[in-house]
């Protein structure tokens, strides 16, 4: 038990000592767990708000209508202006964002500088074809239910690394390695864990997991 009494000479202020310890301890815990993550991440708004749900009702082919595979098997990712122009040469609906889109980008022929939540760093190679076509995974496993969203959430990123927060994990418990959904975090270990579980490949001599070059370039 902590003794707060002034019972011995020479260390008569042990109560204060302990109190100060507790104050320092809790304050730094608070700073580390609550304040620090707030400071570490910054937010940016997407240049244009985009309604996935609305678009899904207008296309025939689901996600692949806009996010498609190219002929060489590579993945097109976020659509380029040329694809958007197919429909949005003129303003179609009555949302302010569409009008803004046409005005700012379509009419000027400028690409929209989308901020990509799931962008991996440059050293990562990711094959959509291998995951979607060979392994028959669905988009939600990694991207969550973005297809049903009506507007784009702000893009949060780490101010030191520049990583998107979606890659790093949004919640404090993600730091501890905990995930509730498959799409909660997309760090190397998450990819590797799934690879080990799904493919069982242990081709790496050093790690007895999938080889480094499967995902790195």
């Amino acid at each position, binding site marked *: 038990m902590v003794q707060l009494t002034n019972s011995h000479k020479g260390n008569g*202020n042990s109560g204060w000592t302990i109190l*100060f310890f507790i104050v320092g301890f809790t304050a730094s815990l608070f700073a580390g*767990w609550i304040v*620090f993550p707030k400071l570490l991440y910054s937010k940016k708004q997407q240049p244009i708000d985009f309604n996935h749900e609305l678009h899904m009702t207008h296309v025939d082919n689901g996600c692949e209508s806009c996010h498609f595979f*190219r002929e060489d098997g590579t993945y097109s*990712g976020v659509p380029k202006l040329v694809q958007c122009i197919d429909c949005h040469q003129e303003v179609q609906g009555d949302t302010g964002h569409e009008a803004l889109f046409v005005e700012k980008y379509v009419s000027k022929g400028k690409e929209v500088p989308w901020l990509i939540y799931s962008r991996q760093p440059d050293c990562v190679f990711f094959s959509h074809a291998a995951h979607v076509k060979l392994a028959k995974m669905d988009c939600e496993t990694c991207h969550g239910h973005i297809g049903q969203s009506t507007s784009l959430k702000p893009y949060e990123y780490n101010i030191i*690394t*520049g*990583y998107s927060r979606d890659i790093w994990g949004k919640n404090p418990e993600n730091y501890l390695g905990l995930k509730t959904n498959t799409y909660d975090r997309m760090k190397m270990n998450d990819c590797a864990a799934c690879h080990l579980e799904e493919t069982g490949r242990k081709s790496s001599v050093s790690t007895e997991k999938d080889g480094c070059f499967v995902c790195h370039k």
Partner: protein
Amino acid sequence: MKIDRRCFLSLGIGAAAGTALSPLPWKLMDDASIWTQNWPWTPVPPDGEISYTDSTCTLCSGGCGITVRKIDDRVVKIEGRENHPVNNGGICVLGLSGTQLLYGPTRVKSPMKKINGTFQKITWNQALSEITEKLLTLRAEGRSHTVAAIAGSSRGTVSALLQRFLTAYGSPNFYCQSSIEDSFSLSHIQPQNNKTIPGFDLENADYVLSFGTGIIDGWGSPVRMIQASNAWKTKNLKLIQVEPRLSDTAARSDEWLPSKPGTEAILALGIAHVILQESLYDQAAIDYHSEGFVTWRTAVLGHYHPDKVAEITGIDAKTIFTVGREFGQAEKPVAICGRGKGNTPVSVAEMSAIHALNVLVGNVNKKGGVFTLPEPNYISWPEISFDTKAETSLQTKQIAEGGLLHRLPSAINEAEDSVTLLFVADANPCYTLTDTKEVIRAFKKIPFKVSFSSYMDETAKLSDLILPNHSYLERYEDVPVTSGLRNPVIGLTKPIVNPLFQTKHTGDVIISIARAMKGSIESSFPWKNYYQCLKNGLGQHWNPLLNNGVVEITYIPEFEEIPRFAFQIPNDKPQVLLEGNENKMDLTLIPSDSMRLSSGYIGAPPFMMKTIPDTILKDNNTLVQIHPKTAEKLELKQGCYAILKTPRDEKKVKIHLSQGIGEDIISFPRGLGHTAYDSYLAGKGINFNELIGPVEDPFSGLDVAWGIRASLIKA
């Protein structure tokens, strides 16, 4: 109870413990390392759609087909085009480095005018009106003939347009770099006034006798030659290399004959002697293809006995006999010449002596032999119209006698104001011409120089106005290829990317200047733009060219049309002519060519510089190769500095000892010593051309310098 420093210590410990149990230190540590993995100053190439486009390389005269890989609209890689008649998938260092020329810092990004010694950006309108005005004024003053132009090649539409402009304008002063084909042409008797070009069916030869030809050092169309040389390897055919130094070609040959420098022609005649003496020649073929055999035969038999030849060339008589017999008895032997990359002409005497071997064994215009082909005149344009002004001024004498480019600098240096305006297209004479110092002096005398260069090369840097051409990856242009091929081939460059900068196609510039000149000049250029001019001019070739990117011109001439070889009577006293005093300078300096170093008008891009071994260039020093015995004599050691002196100049070089070169010979790498381009190339080493000067062939007047006397003194 009081708060003392112990409490603060306690606070500190508590804070430390709390911090350690929070993500803060760990995440910062992790993020710091991730930051190092994504340093903002390390570029991240944007991803995009991969696409491939075929085109033609123009960086040397080889004309290889290329396939350009793009990511969205960026060129990221140039590869050899599969199934292309010239290079079939292969590619060379220079071709591969093309992206660096496209995006490199050496590009001239807009028209530039030199004002008070420094270049300033101007608009195309300003540039074009300035040049038009100058031309109109000169014409009005009756000085049309003082306008001159230098083109890199005599072939192709752009060169032809420039020549056409000069002609229509009224100047006879159009020059282009002479080549080995000129020597070949001159050694033949022409039925009409047509030039002749050689075609080599080297893949099908079975005995190749090469007189210093850098078959795999960049001669002809380099990639195709490397492929041919490998075809010989597989078929176990013989390659004999006559050369004073162990070049890569010599190293790969089946037999290296280390002749003394400059004695190639004499050796050829020695070999001819053996063939004649042992009656290994094909009389019927000789009658069919040549003239003057009998007198020549007597001369060769009289003055070129192998014993005598051995003395001069350093190749022993036994070897000469063996080679002569082997050559004479081989089924499809071929003798080729043109030292190193073969970019400079050889003397007609030498060409004659060597080509005579082909004629002797009757492998002319035959499978596996040498073909005598007419110039591929594939461009058909309407006749030029002249006004009287042009007609009169065209009668003036050319400034450089005989239209020989190497004579131009001295002509300019001798006569004031002989050239008042000079155009330079696809050429870099201030680097590639011999006796470069004189060339630069002449250039400085010309009041107004216009360069069409895409790159800030030596000539562009000295010019008063630069009208930058599109890079070869940004433009349409025909690429005629003749060098070393069996049949001439026309390739087409295509705009792979939109022009990156404010550049303009040289063809378009010439056409618009011509149209601005009005009158007969304008009517000589009846095209809207260069594209139309190219399309119309190429006629039947255009569509196949546009679709396939390449057209092979197979043309079998009638007998009457075939130029006949003229046996040239050799000297009765075989001798080697070389600039310099033998007593003062007892060494011979010869250049060495390499695939890894570009020595033409395009400077080596950074990637290419990376491949150069440190036995050629170390820091900014050129290394010259000498034999250890020569070094011993001169008290020189590996890696030490020495002063290299020639009658033309002297330079500080480093010494590299090599067993691949004979005594008293210095081998000097060609392609270094640029003073322009970018920091990756400029100031590296020494330009060989500064050390030698033109040596004229008494027969043709061509500059046939292949080396020079020199001395080396320890520095």
